[in-house]
C-alpha cells in the first residue's frame, strides 16, 4: 500500500524529508508522473507529491529569464513565452506518448531532472545549459539554493549542472530559473532524399561545419521516414535527411539556397516550410516514430561515428534507428527482447565512445538491465559520494539511476 505525502509549502517539504530520514524510509518524488517509467523502477512505501510547487513566479522577457515552480507544466511555460515571441531554446521533448502516456503533461522540473533536450541541442545546448539557478530541499531535509537569476554567473559551485540529469536522486527542486531566448522568426527545412546512413552523416557534418547556422540535423532511414506524419517525408519512398534553418525572414531565401548548394551532391533536394517543417521537428524531438511499447534506446556518440555505431548494433539485433544531432544521437527501437539488447548497444558505445540510456522498456527489464551507461569503478564510487553529499540516508529516489545510489 503506497502512501502519498503532499507538502503544501517548502517548509513542509523539509519536514516531510526530515521525517523520512528519521524513519529511514525512502521517498519517490513526482509531480504529474509523466516520466515515471524513465529510469530504474523505484519501489517505496511513501511517495512525495511535489505538485504544489507550480506556477510561473517571474517572467522578465527583456532580461531573458523565467522563474517557475518546478512542477509548472511545460505547456504553461511555453504558452507564456509564445506570447512574447520567446521560447526555451533547448527544445525540451514531450516524452509522454513515447512512454505510453498522454501528450503535454510534462513539467519544467521533470525536463531539467532528466536533462532532456531536442534537436537544437547541437546549437543551443541541453537543458543543463539553460538552468541559471534553483531552490531545492536535499535528502538531509535542508532547503538550499544555487546559481541566480542572471545569465552570467560563476559564484560558487554550479550545482544546477548536478541537478540536471540527476533524476531527483539528490534533492527535490521547488523553484527553477531558466534562460529563455527569442523565438526564430522563420523556420525552413532542407530535405536531402535517398542518402545512405554514411552519406547522410557526411551531409549533416558538412552542413554543421558550414556558415549556414543549421539548428537541426536529422536522418531517417527509409523505414523511419515512412512513419512520419509529414506527407513529403513519408512519401519519399526512401531515406530522408533533414536540415533546419531558423532566423529572420529576409535572410531565409539566401540561406536555404546556400545550404542546398552545399548538400545537393548527397541527393535530390526538397524543402519544407512553416507547418510541415515544425511538424517534422516535433516528431524528431518527441521520437514520435517509435510509438509502441518495445525497448527504445537513446545513444549519444561522437557525431562522425554515428553510422558505424548504428551498423555495429543492427548487424547483431533487429531494430530501427534514426539519427539526430548531426549523427551524434541515435534513437533505436527494438522488438521486445529479454535484455533489451543491452550488451550489443553497450559494445557499440564502448567501441566508439559515448553512452546509451534505455529510455523505454518494461519495468522488469529496467530493473535487470543497466538503464544508464555503467561507469568504471572509480567514477561509480565518486558518483556514490556525490549522492551521499546530498542524501546520505538514501531518502530520495534511491536506485532510480544506479542500484545503491
Amino acid at each position: 500500500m503506497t502512501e502519498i505525502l503532499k507538502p503544501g509549502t517548502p517548509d513542509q517539504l523539509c519536514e516531510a524529508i526530515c521525517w523520512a530520514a528519521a524513519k529511514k524510509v525512502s521517498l519517490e518524488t513526482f509531480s504529474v508522473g509523466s516520466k515515471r517509467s524513465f529510469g530504474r523502477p523505484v519501489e517505496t512505501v511513501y511517495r512525495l507529491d511535489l505538485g504544489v510547487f507550480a506556477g510561473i513566479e517571474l517572467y522578465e522577457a527583456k532580461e531573458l529569464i523565467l522563474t517557475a515552480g518546478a512542477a509548472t507544466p511545460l505547456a504553461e511555460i511555453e504558452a507564456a513565452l509564445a506570447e512574447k515571441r520567446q521560447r526555451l531554446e533547448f527544445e525540451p521533448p514531450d516524452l509522454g506518448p513515447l512512454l505510453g502516456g498522454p501528450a503535454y503533461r510534462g513539467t519544467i522540473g521533470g525536463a531539467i531532472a532528466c536533462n532532456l533536450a531536442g534537436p537544437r541541442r547541437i546549437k543551443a545546448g541541453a537543458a543543463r545549459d539553460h538552468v541559471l539557478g534553483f531552490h531545492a530541499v536535499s535528502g538531509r531535509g535542508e532547503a538550499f539554493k544555487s546559481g541566480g537569476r542572471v545569465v552570467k554567473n560563476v559564484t560558487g559551485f554550479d550545482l544546477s549542472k548536478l541537478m540536471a540529469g540527476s533524476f531527483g536522486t539528490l534533492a527535490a527542486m521547488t523553484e527553477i530559473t531558466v534562460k529563455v531566448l527569442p523565438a526564430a522568426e522563420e523556420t525552413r527545412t532542407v530535405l536531402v532524399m535517398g542518402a545512405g546512413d554514411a552519406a547522410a552523416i557526411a551531409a549533416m557534418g558538412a552542413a554543421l561545419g558550414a556558415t549556414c547556422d543549421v539548428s537541426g540535423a536529422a536522418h531517417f532511414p527509409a523505414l523511419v521516414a515512412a512513419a512520419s506524419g509529414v506527407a513529403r517525408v513519408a512519401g519519399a519512398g526512401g531515406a530522408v535527411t533533414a536540415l533546419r534553418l531558423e532566423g529572420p525572414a529576409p535572410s531565409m531565401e539566401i540561406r536555404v539556397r546556400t545550404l542546398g548548394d552545399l548538400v545537393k551532391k548527397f541527393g535530390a533536394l526538397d524543402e519544407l516550410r512553416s507547418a510541415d517543417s515544425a511538424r517534422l521537428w516535433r516528431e524528431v524531438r518527441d521520437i514520435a516514430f517509435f510509438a509502441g511499447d518495445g525497448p527504445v534506446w537513446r545513444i549519444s556518440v561522437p557525431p562522425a561515428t554515428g553510422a558505424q555505431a548504428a551498423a555495429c548494433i543492427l548487424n547483431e539485433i533487429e531494430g530501427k534507428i534514426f539519427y539526430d544531432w548531426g549523427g551524434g544521437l541515435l534513437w533505436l527501437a527494438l522488438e521486445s527482447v529479454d535484455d533489451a539488447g543491452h550488451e550489443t548497444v553497450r559494445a557499440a558505445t564502448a567501441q566508439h565512445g559515448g553512452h546509451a540510456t534505455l529510455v523505454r522498456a518494461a519495468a522488469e527489464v529496467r530493473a535487470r538491465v543497466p538503464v544508464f551507461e555503467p561507469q568504471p569503478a572509480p567514477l561509480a564510487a565518486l558518483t556514490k559520494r556525490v549522492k551521499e553529499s546530498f542524501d546520505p540516508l538514501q531518502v530520495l529516489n534511491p536506485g532510480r539511476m544506479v542500484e545503491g545510489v
Partner: protein
Amino acid sequence: MLMPKPDGQILARRGDIVAALRTMVPHESIIVDEDERRVYESDGLTAYRQLPLIVVLPETKEQVSRVLAYSHQAGVKVVPRGAGTSLSGGALPLADAITLGLGKFNRILEIDFANRCVVAQPGVTNLAITQAVEGEGFYYAPDPSSQIACSIGGNVAENAGGIHCLKYGLTTNNVLGVEMVLITGEIMRFGGKHLDSGGYDLMGLITGSEGLLGVITEVTVRILRSPETARALLIGFPLSEAAGDCVAAVIAAGIIPGSMEMMDRPAIHAAEDFVQAGYPLDVEALLIIELDGPEAEVTDLIKRVEAIARDNGALTLRVSQSEDERQLFWAGRKAAFPAIGRISPDYYCMDGTIPRHKLPVVLNRIRQLSARYGLRVANVFHAGDGNLHPLILYDANQPGELEGAEEFGADILKLCVKVGGVLTGEHGVGVEKRDLMRVMFTEDDLKQQQRVKCAFDPDGLLNPGKVYPTLHRCAELGRVHISRGQTRFPDIPRF
C-alpha cells in the same frame, strides 16, 4: 584577507617533501629556490602575494597523479595553477602548499574537424585553440580578454567568459570532455567527443570549481564554424539609461547580437586618449553592438538595430564599413583596462552581474560611492549578459587607498546582489570575494556546496582558503542532524 594559518609541521618537513617529490617528477620540474619561486607568488590579482612552499611543474598526467597521491597520503596542501591570469586570486599560493603548475601541458593533442572538436592539454592558451583551427574556418567561442595568455585548463577551472556569452555561452557550454586527477591520484574522464553523459553531470560541476575538486589534465572543447561575416555598430547616447533601453529594445525585437558592450564617459575618454578609435567624446554612454552570422542575416539585422538605436535617442551612430573599421571600433574597448592603467597608478577591476534593467540604479549608486570614497571609477559593461566591470582607480602608494578601493569594491558587489544579481560573472570568487559569499548564500547553501567538495577532497587539501569563507571538516559537514521531523507532521496532507 586572512588565509588559513600555515601548518608548522609541513613547513618543518619541507626538505623531506622535496626529496619525496624528486622520486616522482624530474628534478628540473621542482622549484625550490626562493628567487625562482617568487615568479609564482601571485596571479592576476597582484594585490595579494605569498611565496609557495614548493613549485612543481609536472609533464605527464602520471606525474600529476603521483604528486597528488603523495600529497593526499602526506597531508600536504596543493594549489593548482594554469597560466596565473586569475583576477580573483584563485592561484594565490599558500606558505604550506605545493603550487602545481600545468604550464608544461602545452600541446594540442588532436584536431577533429569531423566531430568539430579539439582535444588539448590544459596549459594550451585559449587563443592557441582558435589559431590551430582558423585556417579551416573554425574557432573556439569563449574569448576572455586575457585569451592570449590564459590557459584552457584555467578557463575550465574558472568557467571563463568573454564578450560573446549571451549568444555563444561561457566555457561550460563549450566543453565536451575533461580528464581530471583527484587528490587520491585517481585519473577520471568525464564526457568525451559526444554530448551529455549518462550519470551525474560531474563535468558541469568541475567547470568553474576553481581548483577545489581536482587537477585538470586534458580538455575537449567544441569548435564552431566562424561566422560568414561580422559587422559592428558604434552608438553614442546622452544618458546611460538610453543606452540601456536600446539594449533592452534590441532583445525585445528578438535579436541576439554576437556581443553588446557598453562603456561610460570615463572609460570612453580613457580609451580614446589611448588608441584613438574615433569614439565620440560628448556622450555619456557608448554601445558597441556586433552582429555576426550569414551575410544576408547580418545585413538585415544591422538595419533593424540602427532603427532601434535611433528610436532610443542615439546621438551618434556609425556602422563598420570594413573589417578594419570593425576592428577599430573594438580597439578602444579591448584596450579599456590598459587605458585606465595610463590614467591611474593602480586600478581594481570588479565583476558583478546585475539584471540589465537595474543598470541606471547601479551606475547612480556607484557614482555616489565614488564621491564618498574619493576614488574615481570607470565602467565597462557586457550589456548583453549584465556583467558589469567597474574599474576603481587608486594609488597603492597613498596610505589607505588600497583598503578604500577594496571596501568600495565590496560595496559595489553587495549592491549587485541586492538588486538581484550575483558577486561574480566571470572572474571567479577566489580569495577576493570569498568573504562576501554570505551576502549571496545562506549557511546551508554554503554547507551543501562544501559537502560536494568533500566527495572529491575529504581532507580539504586542494586550494584551501579559496571560495568558501569558513573551512568545515568533512566529518562535521557529513553528520546528519535531524532536529525536525520526529512527529508525523499533522499539517501535511497525506493520501
